[in-house]
């Protein structure tokens, strides 16, 4: 299944075309096609084993596609060695050079290109200032905390002015608070620097917070590539609906413009036949006298307090649903719930 990625700008920075990769007898990536725009923050989201790290390594040059091509700015990329590409990587464990100072770590790429010493110093200072690590110039990596090492790794990569920055789960080793902080920093850094970031993670909250677009990878194939809003509100498949946020998956039939799942029906468009619908818990509310809402009566099995909202487990004619409502006192046994028909998104299941 190949999904051409929609790019809003006419210019494309990076083009991955029908790329496939196998390790031994395992197909890690099958037929991936994806375009990345300039100055875009794209997240490759997926579980472990989905192939996301492999895809990143293909971009960096540490692996070669078995099939397909990668193009960047009008030139073939996948035939270039890693050190020939205008692509830089922030590694998962930062991979800072333990025997070099922070200054020399950051300067490494410049020295490799034989940049003159006179020019190196100001550039390094600027790069460090950009990540707010100026006072750590002479320290060694072993003397830095995780977050500090990460910033140095960023500076080290960005100083080379790559056209594309790859980030391999860079925040996974940080604790929750630091993670949130770094997410904000990363986002503003990307805006500031103005180049494309390709960010790999398995954390969907992170993906949604940071990205201009999310590419959800599953078992070597792209399930969906969309903006966070679109991927959340309009999931294409059941997998996407479940992976991103919580959802209710209702199985039923669609016939002559009516979708029927258990006792609930509503008007829906699309080809007739078996259908699966995704309805987000927050899309279901306690029914008001709103005529356009699809109503159904359900029994409240469980009510969990969650601060601003309550999570309800309700049961309706054999269907089990999760509903998120504004926090309120304890609800009675039976309630009437409602949702707007447009919030029931028809999704594909695997094999369709």
């Amino acid at each position, binding site marked *: 299944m190949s999904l051409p990625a929609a790019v809003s700008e006419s210019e494309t920075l990076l083009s991955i075309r029908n790329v496939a990769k196998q*390790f031994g007898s395992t197909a890690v990536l099958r037929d991936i096609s994806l375009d990345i725009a300039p100055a875009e923050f794209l997240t490759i989201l997926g579980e472990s084993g989905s192939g996301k790290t492999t895809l990143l*390594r293909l971009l960096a*040059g*540490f*692996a*070669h596609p078995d099939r397909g091509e990668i193009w960047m700015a009008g030139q073939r990329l996948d035939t270039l060695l*890693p050190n020939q590409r205008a692509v830089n990587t922030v590694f998962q464990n930062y991979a800072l050079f333990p025997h070099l100072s922070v200054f020399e770590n950051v300067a490494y790429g410049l020295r490799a290109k034989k940049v003159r010493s006179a020019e190196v110093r100001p550039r390094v200072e600027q790069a460090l200032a950009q990540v707010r690590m100026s006072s750590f110039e002479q320290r060694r990596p072993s003397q830095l905390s995780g977050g500090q090492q990460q910033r140095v790794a960023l500076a080290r990569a960005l100083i080379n002015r790559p056209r594309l920055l790859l980030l391999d789960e860079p925040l996974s080793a940080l604790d929750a608070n630091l993670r949130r902080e770094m997410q904000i920093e990363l986002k503003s850094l990307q805006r500031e620097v103005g180049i494309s970031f390709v960010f790999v993670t398995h954390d969907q909250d992170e993906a949604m917070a940071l990205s201009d677009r999310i590419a959800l990878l599953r078992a070597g194939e792209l399930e969906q590539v969309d903006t966070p809003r679109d991927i959340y509100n309009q999931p294409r498949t059941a997998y996407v609906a479940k992976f991103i946020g919580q959802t209710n998956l209702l199985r039923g039939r669609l016939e002559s413009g009516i979708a029927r799942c258990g006792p609930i029906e509503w008007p829906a468009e699309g080809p007739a036949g078996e259908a699966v619908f995704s309805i987000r818990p927050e899309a279901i509310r306690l029914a008001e006298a709103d005529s356009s809402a699809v109503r159904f009566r359900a029994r409240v099995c469980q009510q969990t307090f969650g601060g601003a909202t309550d999570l309800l487990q309700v049961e309706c004619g054999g269907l089990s649903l999760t509903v998120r409502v504004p926090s309120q006192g304890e609800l009675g046994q039976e309630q009437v719930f409602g949702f707007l028909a447009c919030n029931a998104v028809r999704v594909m299941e695997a094999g369709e």
Partner: protein
Amino acid sequence: MNESNPRVPRWLQIHALLVFAFLYLPIVALGVYSFNGESVGGFPPRGWTLRWYRMLAADDTLWATVGNSLLVAAAAVALALLLGFPAALALDRTSFPGKAVFRRLVLLPLILPGIITGLSLLILFVTAGLKLSLLTIALGHGTALMSVATTELFAGLQKLDRAQEEASLDLGASEWRTFWRVTVPNLKLSIIGAALLIFTLSMDEIAVSFFLIGRDNTLPLEIWSRLRRGITPEINAVSTVIFVFSLLMIVLWYRLRTRDQRQQPGLAAIASAGE
């Protein structure tokens, strides 16, 4: 999975091959010539005979020295373990003034040329009026190989789950009991490995033994004195036998060791302990 180096530089492969050839060809040649029909090492080897091995089997003097070596090796293993185990424990669990010096002293015989260890012990024994014999050789081996025992057992202790001992103590067991019921069983592999290694090294040991020899020879010393008198092809045979024997022991030792998953050169492990 590392694909960033898909092509191994040719020269690196060739170099590795040549080094292995350098390390093994001489020994292999020895083995080949132990079956040589002619009595000297000409090329190419002529004939094929088991004559030298038959001579070897009938050589009573040599077998007597084998017996001596076995005695000494057994004593060396006992000594080295009895001393090395406490030493490893001490390095792993205690701190006392002079610990760093102690650590270095214990490890010194590993890297010190055998002559210095041998000579200094010789002077000790002579001053103490002890007559040179298999006993003095055993004492020498014990001293020199204690460092091997310490290294091996220390590495084993480092991998040991401390929580098990703590659990044992927490449940009311004495330290003695904890030692025998928890520590030692967990270190079984390390102990056996160390014993194997020390045994093999003792059987081969010659530098230290050279100075501590009394009336009775050990196997290596017997071979040595025959070598000084001239080459006989029988020596090819005995060398091959020794090689095969040591090979088996070391492979066995290594199998035991890697059963414990991680491999870590003992010296590096100890080096980080005293600091």
